[in-house]
């Protein structure tokens, strides 16, 4: 073993660029790898599976404008909108930028309309109320009984390629990506990451100056390998995909966030979702049949006939929710937090908890700030303006 | 397709080979039919005897047709063989040898055929 580029002596002066191992090749890990490499830090990303094979991959693919959270969580909403603007610049040509609609067809929805528009206004989210006639002209498959709709700058991303964009850019700048490599032991204070390479079957000790734990709902489990503690709630959700693109815009129900209230078009399919329930184990989440039915029912009320398009795929995965006192499930925050485990006696380990793919870049910026602070490494974040490479250039091994 | 744009460079050989293969193929569908009808079907017993062959070949039109037929069928067959051999992914060097070999074989076959015919009608 032996760490690469360790700190030179006790005073923290760095001899060569620090070497950081990022655990997790989902959207967070990929964005962190990109951010750190752009700041001149050497990075190696490891994952027990392939790129985006966990929570990110099973994503519904809605790039939020923040409108969904405007009323309940203005801070997250503002953050989503800010990131949405940044991604428009740096991921140009790589997303479906058709916008999103919040549609209402009941008195209850109409009662929420004012609150919703005000909240969007407060959060700086461009929201335009459009007539039902115009809405139906834009999206003819919508329920003809709709009363109102609000257009917001939502978009659609392909989760796998979202990650590959960040990774490709990081790889070109020198980052290493090592997939199918599982962490089996972690001793960050010694800079030691013990991994098992599933391709060779061999165990190996990797050296790092710092370990960043970006494993989503598995964050607690990975931190525990080092004796550290992270409170993360794994909140499972089911998405149902049908074999037809029923709309071009992301369709949301004009109501506070609830189950099955979103339809996301992706390529020639529509992804309907989602549900939310806490699980103990983020691996192997069962797909409850009643969830599939519930989601299809909700979607059917928004887009009549969607059921007839036929089931294409069903997926279940766990979102990582930051545990805050007194909130859980839908009420839980989609905020994130970067935790340095040094105060609890585990030096050299940073965990990122919470957040969502839309804000992955912002999460990475915060995490990288913390990493740099640890090394006294003065480098500004450049990811806000730097165009990302095509995901096709990412080598996903 | 933008009609005004120039033809893609690097495609010349592909166009030539494919075009020739297709063109000779279409000719052959007509030609084989004719050849086969003339040489085997209209003849009592399916094959001409020696004197019939010779007198048949002495017709100038027949001679011209049969000779062109030989050229076309040889071209088509060798281009077909080349396509199959090219699928084995030859190196540039082997490909050149292949082109040379097949070309010589084609010329040989045609020369042989013409020489044989001329000997018979002489």
């Amino acid at each position: 073993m032996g760490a690469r580029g360790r700190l030179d002596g006790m005073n923290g002066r760095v001899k060569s660029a620090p070497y950081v191992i990022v655990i997790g090749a989902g959207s967070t890990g990929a964005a962190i790898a990109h951010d750190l490499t752009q700041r001149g830090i050497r990075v190696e990303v490891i994952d027990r599976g392939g790129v985006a094979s966990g929570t990110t991959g099973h994503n519904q693919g809605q790039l939020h404008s923040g409108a969904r959270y405007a009323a309940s969580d203005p801070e997250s909403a503002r953050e989503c909108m800010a990131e949405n603007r940044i991604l428009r610049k740096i991921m140009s040509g790589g997303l479906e930028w058709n916008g999103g609609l919040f549609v209402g067809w009941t008195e209850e929805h109409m009662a929420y309309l004012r609150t919703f528009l005000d909240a969007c206004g407060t959060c700086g989210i461009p929201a335009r109320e459009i007539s039902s006639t115009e809405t139906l002209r834009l999206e003819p498959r919508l329920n003809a009984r709709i009363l109102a709709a609000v257009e917001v700058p939502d978009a659609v991303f392909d989760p796998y390629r979202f990650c590959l964009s960040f990774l490709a850019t990081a790889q070109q700048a020198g980052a290493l990506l090592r997939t199918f490599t599982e962490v089996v032991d972690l001793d960050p204070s010694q800079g030691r990451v013990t991994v098992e390479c599933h391709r060779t079957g061999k165990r190996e000790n990797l050296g790092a100056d710092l370990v960043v734990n970006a494993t989503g709902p598995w964050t607690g489990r990975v931190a525990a390998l080092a004796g550290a503690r992270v409170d993360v709630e794994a909140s499972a959700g089911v998405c149902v995909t049908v074999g037809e693109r029923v709309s071009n815009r992301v369709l949301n129900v004009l109501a506070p966030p609830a189950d099955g209230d979103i339809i996301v078009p992706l390529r020639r399919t529509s992804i309907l979702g989602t549900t939310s329930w806490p699980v103990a184990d983020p691996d192997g989440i069962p797909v409850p049949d009643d969830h599939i039915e519930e989601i299809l029912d909700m979607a059917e009320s928004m887009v009549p006939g969607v059921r007839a398009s036929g089931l294409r795929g069903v997926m279940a995965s766990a979102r990582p929710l930051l545990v805050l006192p007194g909130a859980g499930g839908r009420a839980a925050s989609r905020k994130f937090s970067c935790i340095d485990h040094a105060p609890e006696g585990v030096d050299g380990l940073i965990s990122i908890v919470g957040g969502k793919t839309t804000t992955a870049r912002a999460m990475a910026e915060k995490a990288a700030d913390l990493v740099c602070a640890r090394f006294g490494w003065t480098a500004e974040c450049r990811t806000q303006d730097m165009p990302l490479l095509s995901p096709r250039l990412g080598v996903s091994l | 397709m933008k009609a005004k744009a120039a033809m893609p460079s690097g495609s010349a050989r592909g166009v030539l080979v494919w075009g020739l293969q297709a063109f000779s193929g279409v000719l052959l569908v007509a030609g084989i039919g004719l050849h086969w009808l003339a040489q085997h079907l209209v003849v009592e017993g399916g094959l001409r005897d020696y004197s019939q062959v010779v007198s048949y070949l002495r017709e100038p039109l027949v001679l011209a047709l049969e000779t062109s037929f030989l050229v076309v069928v040889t071209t088509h067959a060798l281009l077909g063989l080349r396509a199959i051999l090219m699928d084995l992914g030859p190196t540039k060097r082997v490909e050149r040898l292949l082109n040379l070999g097949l070309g010589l074989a084609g010329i040989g076959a045609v020369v042989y055929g013409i020489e044989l015919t001329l000997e018979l009608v002489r």
Partner: protein
Amino acid sequence: MPDAGHALALAAPRGLAVSRPVQLHIRRTGRWADYRVEVREGASVLEALEEAWRLDHSLLFRHSCHHGSCGTCGMRINGREALACLTPVAQAARGGRPVRLEPLRNFPLLGDLLVETQQVAAGIEAVGLPIVRDADRPDGHPAEGSPPEQYENCIECGLCVSACPVVGSDRQFTGPAVLAAGGRVAEERRAPDGLAAMTQVSGEHGVWRCHGAFECSEVCPAEVDPAALILGLRGGVFRRSMAGGRK
């Protein structure tokens, strides 16, 4: 309170759900291995494979989206190229037979069901196919202003490359995925330069080497119909050459 209800549903043992035993017969590096797992009725082959992975983390395969959009879980299922996520177990294991899983052909094998398909993505990038295209317009949807956009249909999964008999014998052949992308570029108004793409795929090892076996279109999970694009492209190049020759 739907959340609480789901929590209760989950608390019930998994065995209560209707489940189906499946045997997976997997071509692993240098050997065959069998896994017996239980999955829900209606599960995909990928779900069964993930169950096997839970028993054995050394089992190598890619997966991400689980609905045929990422293109990572391509493999040969019972001898035929398919995405594991879009293949129902009930169909693959009809009559209780074991489901035979093998890696895609014509790609470098990294281990088990894992192959390196990056050459497909890199080749498509090289011919300059944009990642998003104009959205297919449903009937009655008026076009105005900038039309809605959507990701290209091709998910770059490599099934066509594995199924193509010509790639099978000639590695210099550009292959159906990249040729089809070239065909798309030639017809796509967003493409920067259709001619450059055509030039790139119309060399001797390009579009001319397609012999019309149509396997690419048979196995394509994204309705790209590569064969039609390739043959259309070839026709275009041929006609353009003929027209050029007459001038």
